[in-house]
């Protein structure tokens, strides 16, 4: 019964989405107020119905109702409750429902808090949001109904993939979806603005919180995913340039570009066309991500469904959504009035360069992701594009970008003082070169990228701190003045400082862990010891262990550092009740200088096991940096100018129809 209620709620939401797409759009064109106002009602009711459907599905999973196909395929009565709930979105149908739930949530937020939006813009944006909802609800109802029944109902389910039974992964998809779907809001606003034919500072201010929200959650989602891959998959890496990882990374890159562009539109009324294009493309990449994951067009560890019919449906959504908006763009964008002028060396100029580098970087990732697909379609050949490709294409683009990131914020709007900025950064430069030299000296034989990466990270970190010092006039004014300035800096400024600092720290972590990772694969017997660097690992044997829904072999390693006891590691190899393939649980001991990481593999003989031990320098920096970046996004999101009741700086001029 619960499943039927959920299904019914979805059908109602579907019908409502159709009305939400049509009425407000027509109303805005013809000036019919009640039709425009209907957008608000419809958006709120959407949230109600889809929320109801989602709760119904969660209830089915919590009660282990195996007469529902999705529950049978992805849950098990002995699964811990948290993973029964997480299983709701650990599968294609359920995750799609989560997708539309977040879409509806954002629509409702615009409806509720968009009181000071011009009514036409609001009606049109909500109408576009309704169209996206309509398309995805149709996709769900016609190809992937989460409430499909299974008759007769089996007694037991097939269990959630053990790799997904993990607290980090319970959070990973919702975060990514918040990000993907957040870009749907910027997309809707961009399309609405194209229809209106005007983009101004006020528009940028309305769109920016959505971009920030999407960017922040996407950052958190990607970092969570990398962290999960690191400790759960047991291969000792955190990023493999897998097509689906790239699919989440590309919207992040474009979203980053968009975030910076919007500041230019907001502050200087320039780069409008480019901003609109980025807003469309960011959502386009979210859709490409959805397409790649769910169509079965590529192979990936992350891919969900292997059903070409679904693939065609998403492809159709993608082509219509982007075709429509690109068409609108080609038609309307040339008419957008260019705004403020600026010299090449200026904050705007630096941001243009930032956008250019991010754009090209995204293109290299896109080519790397799609090239195998294109080649296999055109010539039937198969290639795989991996880390070496990205090392020679993507990484060299990031170096100038990171260098620029320290300089840009020190340049003034309109006309910047490059020598002045560089002079202020001299300390950072000297220190970065020194660190590079030291790294090169200490770690002879590493590739050129290692000292370069560390130096660039140090440069950016110091540059960011210098910029903050400049702003609060530290050392140049009385401490009381410093304090006042620090307190009155806008939160957006702190957001930038935190995010840039976070990236700098993450870059150092990435470099360290890629360049100096030490890996040792051995067959060990109890009592054997190996030494890696300053750490010695003694293998004390393997004991059976038991979890709520799995059996495990638990290895014990006593680790000493410089001969003194350091820690004891317990890596596990788990066999879940239903799913056949065993999973590894790496044992990790973190410290600021790096992780030591042990994985126990197959039994190699009657009393010996294959054991992998890694020394992973600086990996925790990556997580700290990622967390700082997300925190920066949140800080910026809490900036005064996005809060309700704060008067707009620019008068809102009513558009006069399209």
């Amino acid at each position, binding site marked *: 019964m619960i499943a039927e209620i959920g299904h019914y709620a979805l059908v109602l939401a579907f019908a409502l989405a159709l009305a939400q797409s049509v009425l407000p759009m027509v109303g805005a064109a013809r000036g019919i107020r009640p039709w425009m106002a209907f957008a608000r009602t419809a958006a709120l009711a959407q949230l109600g119905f889809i929320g109801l459907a989602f709760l119904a599905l969660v209830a089915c999973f919590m009660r282990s109702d195996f007469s529902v196909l999705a529950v049978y395929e992805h849950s098990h009565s002995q699964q811990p409750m948290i993973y029964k709930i997480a299983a709701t979105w650990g599968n294609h149908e359920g995750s799609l429902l989560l997708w539309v739930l977040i879409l509806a949530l954002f629509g409702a937020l615009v409806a509720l808090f968009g009181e000071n939006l011009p009514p036409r813009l609001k009606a049109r944006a909500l109408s576009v949001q309704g169209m996206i909802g309509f398309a995805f609800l149709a996709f769900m109802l016609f190809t992937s109904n989460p409430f499909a029944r299974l008759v007769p109902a089996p007694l037991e389910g097939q269990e959630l993939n053990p790799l997904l039974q993990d607290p980090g992964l319970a959070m990973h998809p919702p975060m990514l979806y918040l990000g993907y779907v957040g870009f749907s809001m910027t997309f809707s606003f961009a399309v609405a603005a194209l229809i209106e034919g005007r983009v101004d500072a006020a528009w940028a201010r309305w769109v920016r919180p959505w971009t920030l929200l999407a960017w922040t959650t996407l950052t958190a989602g990607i970092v969570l995913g990398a962290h999960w891959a690191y400790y759960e998959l047991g291969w000792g890496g955190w990023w493999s340039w897998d097509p689906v990882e790239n699919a989440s990374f590309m919207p992040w890159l474009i979203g980053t570009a968009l975030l910076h562009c919007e500041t230019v539109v907001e502050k200087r009324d320039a780069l409008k066309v480019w901003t609109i294009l980025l807003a469309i493309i960011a959502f386009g990449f979210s859709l490409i991500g959805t397409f790649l994951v769910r169509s079965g067009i590529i192979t990936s560890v992350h891919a969900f469904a292997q059903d070409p019919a679904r693939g065609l449906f998403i*492809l159709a959504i993608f082509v219509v959504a982007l075709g429509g908006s690109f068409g609108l763009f080609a038609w309307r*964008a040339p008419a957008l009035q260019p705004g403020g002028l600026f010299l090449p060396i200026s904050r705007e100029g630096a941001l243009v360069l930032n956008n250019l580098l991010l754009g090209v970087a995204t293109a290299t990732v896109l080519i790397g992701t799609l090239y195998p*697909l*294109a080649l296999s379609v055109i010539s039937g*050949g198969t290639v*795989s594009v*991996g880390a*070496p*490709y990205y090392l020679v294409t993507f990484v060299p683009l990031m170096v100038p970008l990171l260098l620029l990131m320290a300089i840009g914020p020190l340049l003034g709007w309109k006309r910047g003082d490059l020598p002045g900025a560089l002079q202020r950064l001299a300390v950072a430069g000297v220190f970065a070169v020194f660190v590079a030299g030291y790294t090169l000296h200490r770690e002879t034989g590493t590739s050129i990228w290692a000292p370069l990466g560390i130096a660039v990270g140090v440069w950016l970190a110091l540059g960011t701190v210098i910029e903050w010092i400049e702003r609060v006039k530290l050392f140049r004014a009385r401490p009381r003045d410093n304090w006042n300035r620090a307190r009155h800096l806008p939160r957006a400024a702190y957001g930038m400082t935190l995010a840039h600092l976070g990236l700098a720290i993450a870059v150092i972590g990435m470099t360290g862990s890629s360049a100096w990772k030490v890996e040792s694969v051995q067959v060990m017997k109890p009592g054997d010891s190996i030494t890696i660097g300053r750490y010695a690992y003694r293998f004390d044997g393997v004991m059976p262990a038991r979890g709520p829904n799995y059996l495990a072999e638990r290895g014990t390693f006593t680790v000493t550092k410089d001969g003194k006891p350091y820690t004891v590691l317990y890596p596990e190899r788990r066999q879940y009740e239903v799913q056949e393939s065993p999973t590894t649980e790496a044992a990790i001991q973190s410290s600021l200088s790096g992780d030591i990481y042990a994985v126990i593999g197959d039994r190699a003989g009657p009393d010996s096991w294959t054991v992998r031990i890694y020394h992973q320098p600086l990996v925790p920096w990556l997580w700290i940096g990622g967390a700082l970046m997300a925190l920066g996004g949140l800080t910026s999101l809490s900036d005064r100018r996005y809060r309700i009741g704060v008067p707009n700086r620019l008068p809102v001029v009513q558009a006069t129809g399209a």
Partner: protein
Amino acid sequence: MNKRLFYLLPIVLLGLFGVIAWYGLAPDRDPSALPSALIGKPVPGFNLATLDPGSGGLTPRDFAGKVTVVNFFASWCVPCKAEHPLLFQLAKDYQVPIYGIAFQDKTEDTERYIREMGSPYSKIGLDQNGRTAIDFGVTGVPETFILDKTGIIRYRLAQPIDPGRLAGEIGPLLKSLAQ
């Protein structure tokens, strides 16, 4: 007019993507199949340093005039270790030279690996940056290619060699190519 064309660019690129994706979704296409684009084609060009500097570099010229096996491996790769004894057997039973290419491996690690495990290889090329592996379309190690006397790639195995494949696929192919 030129400016207008710029604004049309996104939609053109979208169309291109749409066409590729459309064909990519064809029901008879299996994305997990791994036929090599290189089968029936000449071996790609490369020039690698070798583990034993006295033996000169490793280039496709080393393969000329004989049936050869090219095996990508790495000291950090566990399945490579499992495969290793079979490479000795392959070299002995079928009298073919095996050329090893160490994929993204430090020289000293490769050296230690060969010292510990012995060398079934006639020559070992060092592909430290992985470029040659890209040219071969290698998806992971170990991976094995068989070339005929004219240097045309005839076979590719994107996984460790197992005794069944050695006797059932690789052996017969080597025999027929040798004639």
